[in-house]
């Protein structure tokens, strides 16, 4: 009997952790993509995530009011995240002014975006947290013996994995992906060989934005959207990319799993350690492997 209880607790942690990791991966992948190509650490990734969450709630409520069937909310959420990608080119245009400047200014400009987005969210959705009811249960449950969990969580994990795989294939196998990696490696050379770097930067940033907004949209059926979301998520997303290594996609995946599982473990067994445990790991990784698990060595 005790073994069964322990097993259920184990599965709880595992499913909770992997679910959180799936969402974190999306945001962190956006962060990595933008850093890898544009060399900008985007503090506003959390703001995109929160924007995706709020907009997702509005989109689901709107489609439901116009007679969309109950099962449609997952596709609606993903679509709403992709639609939000439209803001990407405009923000990239703003960032373009500081590409050749010191990193401090790049970081500060994205910090300015964090401040501005905070009030954009407040303006459109108000200061109170917004929720989507308990939609995550409406796809039913998966039951494994003693243990059950919402099907929705499994779908999100699958969606995230699918995005990870297609992102990897896109970067490794397609022509556009190769040009993109070449630009990340050496901007001047890629430009000299005829790559349209301006377009690539706009495209990459938009893709990074979409990864963030879709991540935020996918999480709202299970959690409320609040104004603390953007700054809190940055803390975790940073941990993910530092553990995994800045600029590495595999690193984002590994880092997201480490952070997601650590957080789930801490919440279950010793809630005081939630963020503390994550950052102890971050510092340990930086001490032992300065470039992160999959990063390139730093100078």
């Amino acid at each position, binding site marked *: 009997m005790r073994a069964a209880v322990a097993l259920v607790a184990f599965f709880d942690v595992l499913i909770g952790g992997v679910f959180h990791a799936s969402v974190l991966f999306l945001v962190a992948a956006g962060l990595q993509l933008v850093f890898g190509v544009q060399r900008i650490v985007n503090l506003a990734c959390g703001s995109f995530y929160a924007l995706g969450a709020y907009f997702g709630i509005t989109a689901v409520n709107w489609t439901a009011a116009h007679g969309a069937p109950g099962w449609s909310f997952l596709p609606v959420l993903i679509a709403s995240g992709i639609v939000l990608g439209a803001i990407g080119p405009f923000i990239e245009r703003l960032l373009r002014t500081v590409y050749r400047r010191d990193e*401090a200014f790049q970081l500060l*400009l994205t*910090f*300015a975006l964090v*401040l501005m987005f905070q009030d954009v969210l*407040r303006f459109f959705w108000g200061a109170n947290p917004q929720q989507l009811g308990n939609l995550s249960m409406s796809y039913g449950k998966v039951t494994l013996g003693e243990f059950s969990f919402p099907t929705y969580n499994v779908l999100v994990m699958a969606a995230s994995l699918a995005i990870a795989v297609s992102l990897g294939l896109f970067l490794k196998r397609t022509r556009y992906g190769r040009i993109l990696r070449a630009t990340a490696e050496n901007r001047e050379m890629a430009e000299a060989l005829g790559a349209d770097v301006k377009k690539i930067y706009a495209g990459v940033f938009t893709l990074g934005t979409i990864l963030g907004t879709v991540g935020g949209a996918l999480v709202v059926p299970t959690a409320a959207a609040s104004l603390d979301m953007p700054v809190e998520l940055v*803390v975790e997303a940073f941990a993910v990319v530092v553990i995994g290594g800045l600029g590495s996609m595999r690193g984002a995946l590994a880092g997201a799993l480490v952070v997601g599982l650590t957080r789930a473990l801490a919440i279950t067994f010793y809630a005081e350690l939630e963020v503390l445990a994550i*950052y*102890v790991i971050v510092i340990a990784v930086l001490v032992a492997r300065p470039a992160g698990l999959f990063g390139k060595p730093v100078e």
Partner: protein
Amino acid sequence: MSAPRSRVALVSFVVATIAVLAVFPKFAEPYYVTLVLPAFAYAIALLGFNLLFGTAGLLSFGHALFVAIGAYAAAVLTSKLGVRSFEAIVAIAGIVSVIAAIPVAMLAVRYVRIFFGILTLAFGMLFHSFLFKFYNLTGGDTGIRVLRPTLLGQDWKELDKTAFLIGPFYYACLVLALVLGLAMWRIVHSPFGLHLAAIRENSRKAEYLGVRVRTFRLIAFLISAFYGAIGGAILAVNTGQADPELAYWTHSGELVFMTVLGGFANFFGPLVGAFAFIFLKSELMGATQYWRFFLGATLAVIVIAFPRGLMGLASDAWKKATRR
């Protein structure tokens, strides 16, 4: 700065500013005087921050850590240990902060650029979550109260809270800021400061010339932690509270904001930035509930169009005026 005429101009500007600050409480409304106190606090903290950023070229995105250490030191000393002397609080806060900074600095100086920023941010968040979660030790999200300190043994019991803050405490902070400002001026213009600048410009070359790069960065880091904590102690006495938000990464971001607003390339830039930021924020908060948006927009404009900050604008104007 080497030409004697500009030196005279500089000294007279500084003296005039000090004179204005000294008589300010006599003429201004108490509300504006209470705004000067956090500006003093941030000015001191930023003097240290900019030794790292402006002089040594290292951007810390977790410097609020040391401000928070200073604030909590003041809180623990006054409410839990019964130490009320402001002089003792300032000294102890600074020393505790330096001790706490040693392991952080030893790790952080192995990195430069963005990695340095991220590692310092990580330490700041570590301390924040400790403050936030360990309720029994730290009072959790409400923090710990900071009681009124004594100044040179006097407790000023006859004054109410505001009268104490805008009276004796104001002048204590002014003197403290002057002393620490002068000390930092000496540090920046000493051989040590010049070494830091050399490291910033070309660390490899400096190393070839025999500069122990990491040791110098480490010392700069510890000095900046000392200044940060003293700023934090003043901040905490002023609000009467030390809370975890002080260590949050957005607060570190505000420190960077102020420095760039004033101009990090100029010794006086961070001081101007601290005052400008406090007054700008207070005016915006009074004008609109969407003050963060306008604060962010201001930052974006500064970063994009005026990267040398207010002091950069002022020195351009000065050059134009004196060219004839």
